[in-house]
């Protein structure tokens, strides 16, 4: 048979426990009932013990002053605000750096005779056919590095 979860005297037992009337100053009928009712006896035992250790546990706390907690919260909030304000700047700097590297590469390509001569004899399709795996890996790196950088900055 399924065990019941409720007992009609549950709230009375709990009230007696929380008002420190349990067991000696509680109604004798209620005490008698709790002796045979699992729900009420569990409740009286557990609630009684928790209630009696409550003040002991609370009293053992060494709490920081409310003013200090407020001040530390302010400091932390400001630090977080500064960090989040710095985040777009870091992203901008990253983009600017990448653009500078690209620009330097373009200048080098436009002015270097050696580079232009090397490029003239270079066939992209032949190179791709020869080094497909390498080319795919490089393309993946080119795509993944900015994505990884963005994710890292966003989490920060």
């Amino acid at each position, binding site marked *: 048979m399924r065990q019941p*979860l*409720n007992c009609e005297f549950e709230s009375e037992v709990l009230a007696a426990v*929380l008002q420190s009337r349990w067991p000696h100053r509680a109604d004798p009928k209620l005490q008698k009932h709790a*002796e*045979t009712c*699992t*729900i009420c*006896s*569990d*409740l009286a*035992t*557990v*609630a009684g*013990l*928790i*209630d*009696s*250790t*409550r003040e*002991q*546990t*609370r*009293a*053992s*706390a*060494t*709490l*920081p002053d*409310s*003013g200090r*907690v*407020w001040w*530390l*919260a*302010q400091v*932390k*909030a*400001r*630090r977080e*605000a*500064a960090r*989040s*304000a*710095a985040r777009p*700047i870091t992203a901008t700097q990253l983009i600017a750096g990448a653009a500078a590297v690209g620009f330097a590469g373009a200048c080098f390509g436009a002015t270097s005779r050696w580079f232009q001569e090397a490029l003239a004899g270079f066939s992209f399709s032949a190179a791709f056919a020869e080094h497909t795996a390498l080319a795919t890996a490089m393309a993946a790196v080119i795509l993944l590095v900015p994505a990884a950088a963005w994710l890292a900055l966003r989490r920060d």
Partner: protein
Amino acid sequence: MFREVTFTDVNRAAVDAQADFVMDEETFRGFYDRNARGVWAYLARVSGDRQTADDLLQETFYRFLRAAAEHDSEDHRRNSLYRIATNLARDARRRTLTRPHADVAGHDVEAIANRTSAPDTTADFDRAMSRLKPRERAMLWLAYAEGASHREIAEVLGLRPASLKLLLFRARRRLATLLGRSETRHAAAP
């Protein structure tokens, strides 16, 4: 005339800005004074560790202040605070579990009882509590130390109110069994 805004200015503005908290200092201080001790005791009981409770108390109040939630009553505010504390204790426990040789049972709270009055009853109770699951400890503490209703406990622990009665019943049964009292009493009963 107009001065160019630099990155440094943007940073300074962010740092100088008043933190966007859900309440002002005076209200916070009253709220803290009314609830900090209870929250600490809850954290200590759920985590089983005084140090963890010390560490998480400040963070609980900080996250409460930063949460963009609106509270229509003191009880609602208090429930939010306990919900934050519950989540922080859960995260702290997960971190502890990933650390090798961590004392996850957390018998530190036992020391509180042993240091003060040290009756066997209290020591037995602390030992039995430390053998319960954190959620069971949280449920029992909220119900019988904080006097929270089933709806409030469900809200704090992120459970369905309908299932709370059964979960609380099981937790109570388990603690009573660990204490070995009900069993003995019923065995003796005619």
